[in-house]
């Protein structure tokens, strides 16, 4: 950390910039302006690409949270605060939901920085411990999202690349490897980008062409000690069509940006520098979503042979062919009848990929994503009083229901602000910002949901509870009669029933009668 905060002088020269919000590392002040681009290796590149370039870094536009706060009609900021809270909650949700081709079968190498830079305590408890903790979460989440994918973990330690776990599809193996190898290693020495990338490249060399090849690099240091020219490594990564994502823990590094840009067809959005712990997790978990397949990629779709084994239960224990453990029961490979104890896996005897049909189903939501829901304006908000699925009540429009009360409050506030000379505008023109309706509607079934259900449906459930639980007639009824009180659209059964239908209807009426329960019937069971 060469620069310290004391050195920082706000000058008007183009290259000195205020402290980067992204730079959590110790220094974070301005870098030397002249020598910035002279070294190719791992110099901090916290400036714009070139003087006078139109592109501005994120941290150059300072946003003050208090600028957005506007007083509500009743003089409180509660409405705006709720709105801001919901906006941040929704921010992550709003993404492109057109069904796009994604690389569902993935091969990813996770490279963790285990150099001395990870001993910094800017992330609690230390960068190292937090990274290991997030790495464990990442492994779990990765296999939950991509059940038929493979993962491998590498560490950058003392100038070397340290293999933590081999390419494999069993999350338990990776978790134990993390526990046994990564936790026992004390962060030490420098990190070597080139060594780690070369090892990752070697691991991905044999992977089949229909899958993706990705590297996720957690980079805590600001420098790299490499045995050769890292640009050669970058070029060979591009040749092998390996996509690299980087999460920087300290500040942006020029060579990292170049690495990401070149391996992602000129798109550097896969390089992120963390703001805080939450943002760190967000950036890391973003890599669990399967990447979009780009057309220029040379990946060839292919037909894979897979076995769907059946589960067996045995009376006596027998060895499984994958771990040689004694187990009672397991899955039998349909081709060679070897017993494996864990799915999905590759049969150790005949090499057949063994999966459950549920593993395939787990990936379907990436292929058919749920549409984004829209915020409901107050003009339509009166049609619902509560969230359709979790039954929590919605706020009602206070300014419409009790105008007199607001007016009194309003006058008192104007009286208070009159001394400042700001309250010159007439009362009626001053349209106070309405608080948010806190309703979100599915565009297909027009059902209103609360923010929590919105997030839950998009992040975990991947279903619209409304679309799944309303018949087409009820959806139509909701769409046509927008201010309908309840969704009982079935009442308007269209058309005269034909004569043959009548007898059926009579039967159905009987059934309905049977299904009815007597009013006030007590709890006693008949038998």
């Amino acid at each position, binding site marked *: 950390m060469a620069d310290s905060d004391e050195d920082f002088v706000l000058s008007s020269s183009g290259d000195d910039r205020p402290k980067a919000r992204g730079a959590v590392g110790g220094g974070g002040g301005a870098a030397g302006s002249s020598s910035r681009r002279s070294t190719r290796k791992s110099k901090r590149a916290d400036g714009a690409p070139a003087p006078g370039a139109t592109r501005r870094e994120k941290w150059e536009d300072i946003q003050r949270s208090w600028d957005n706060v506007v007083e509500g009609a009743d003089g409180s900021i509660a409405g705006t605060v709720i709105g801001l809270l919901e906006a941040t909650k929704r921010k992550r949700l709003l993404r492109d939901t057109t069904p796009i*081709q994604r690389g*569902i079968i993935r091969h990813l190498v996770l490279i963790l920085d285990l150099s001395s830079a990870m001993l910094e305590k800017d992330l609690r408890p230390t960068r190292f411990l*937090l990274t290991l903790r997030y790495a464990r979460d990442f492994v779990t989440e990765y296999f*939950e999202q991509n059940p038929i994918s493979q993962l491998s973990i590498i560490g950058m330690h003392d100038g070397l690349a340290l293999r933590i776990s081999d390419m494999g599809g069993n999350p338990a193996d990776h978790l134990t490897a993390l526990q046994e190898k990564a936790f026992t290693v004390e962060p030490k020495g420098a990190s070597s980008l080139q060594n780690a990338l070369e090892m990752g490249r070697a691991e991905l060399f044999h992977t089949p*062409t*229909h899958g993706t090849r990705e590297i996720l690099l957690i980079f805590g240091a600001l420098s790299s000690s490499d045995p050769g020219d890292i640009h050669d490594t970058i070029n060979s990564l591009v040749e092998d069509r390996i996509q690299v994502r980087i999460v920087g823990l300290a500040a942006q590094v020029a060579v990292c940006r170049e690495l990401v840009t070149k391996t992602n067809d000129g798109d550097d959005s896969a390089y992120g520098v963390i703001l805080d*712990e*939450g943002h760190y*997790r967000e950036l890391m978990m973003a890599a669990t979503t399967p990447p979009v*397949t780009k057309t220029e990629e040379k990946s060839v*779709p*292919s*037909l*894979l*042979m897979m*076995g*769907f*084994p059946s*589960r067996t239960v045995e009376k006596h224990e027998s060895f499984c062919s994958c771990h040689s453990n004694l187990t009672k029961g397991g899955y039998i490979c349909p081709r060679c009848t070897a017993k494996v104890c864990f799915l999905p896996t590759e049969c150790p005897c*005949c*090499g*057949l*990929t063994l999966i459950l049909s*549920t593993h395939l*189903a787990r*990936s379907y939501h990436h292929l058919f994503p749920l549409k984004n829901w829209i915020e409901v304006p107050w003009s339509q908000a009166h049609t619902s*009083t*509560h*969230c359709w*699925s*979790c*039954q929590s009540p919605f706020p009602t429009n206070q300014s419409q229901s009790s105008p007199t009360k607001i007016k009194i409050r309003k006058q008192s506030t104007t009286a208070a602000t009159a001394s400042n000379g700001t309250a010159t505008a007439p009362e009626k023109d001053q349209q106070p910002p309405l608080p948010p309706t806190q309703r979100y509607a599915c565009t297909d079934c027009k059902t209103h949901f*609360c923010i*929590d*259900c919105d997030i*839950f449906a998009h992040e*975990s*459930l991947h279903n619209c509870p409304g*679309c*799944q*639980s*309303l*018949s087409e007639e009820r959806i139509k009824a909701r769409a046509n009669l927008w201010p309908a009180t309840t969704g009982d659209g079935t*009442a308007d*059964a269209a058309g005269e*029933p034909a004569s043959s239908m009548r007898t059926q*209807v009579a039967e*159905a*009426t009987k*059934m*309905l009668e*049977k299904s*009815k*329960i*007597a*009013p*006030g*019937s007590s*709890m006693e069971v008949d*038998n």
Partner: protein
Amino acid sequence: MDKVDGTEHYNFKAPADVATLQVIILDTNPLAWATFEKSSSLSFPSALSQLLIFANAHLAFSQSNRCAVIANHIDGVHFLSPADPGTDHSDPGEADLTPEDLKEIANQNASKYRVFRLLEDEVRASYRRLIANTTPEAVMDCPNSSYLAGALSAALTYINRICFGGTGGRSSGVPGDEKSKVNSAGGKVDETGRTMHAKILVVSVTPDPANQYIPVMNSIFAAQRLKVPIDVCKLRDATVFLQQAADATGGVYMEPEHPQGLLQYLMVGFLPDHLARQSLILPTKVDVDFRAACFCHKKVLDIGFVCSVCLSIFCEPPEGAVCSTCQVKLDVTSLENIGKPVVLPPKKKKKKKALDSLPESGVASAADSPAPTE
């Protein structure tokens, strides 16, 4: 075995978090129940009474236990309890009653535990409203309709609200954050933000809604993520969906042999909460059918071919090597490699043997003729 000798008894955690939310998803398709009654002589009203006894038994376990009932009706999903706040709560059954009758009922109910009575009244009133709004024509239009995916989705969102305070079971992951967190319910939370445990019971008489495969599976995975077991009481028509739901989430799957004794099955099989279940051997089904059906001929497969883009399953390489779902030209040449053993036998004699064995598994034919014409 060491659970039996009671050593665990002493390091048993304080039973502070034993409160459980029981969500019951009940099929209310009148046609399905009428058909079922013919074969089993268990009518819907009697089944509902038995279910309510079960719900009351659940509520009796702890003051803080809660219960919700969701109807999977012919025209969609309806909350029976808690009833929709927006609708009128009048009981259509009470309109016909004379004041004397009402008094009689009130006297009968006077000594009943209030929590039981509230739930019973609400469920029965909501159900009567539901049937009053259902026309015979609508019943005939959709004899087998089931909104299983919707009912599960509604149940899970409700559980998310009540048990997780809307956090979706995900802590922020930032250290020190969850300890100070008190969620909207104001209760104590564990590391996932959970204040209550939850379980879902599906009482089903309708067959699998085949067109809802993906939504149902999505719901199952969401339940898995929230660690909510889905118990299934399947009265009629064995289903694959619900078997997989119970198996994946660690719930109980039962097909009662004698449906008249439904209450017995409910009490013994489904009543234990998550703590009790740890020390019980659950009466669930062990052999679950996991085999997949191919998209082309609907055949049940042991070994199949999967498109790497859209994950469609085929029983043989599709015609022209083009995936019928996503219209992508597939590379079938790689199938040659998959069939071969991992370690190639070095001797010629053995290689011949390996080749001989290949046609049995159907690999050689697939590799030789990428577009078989049958």
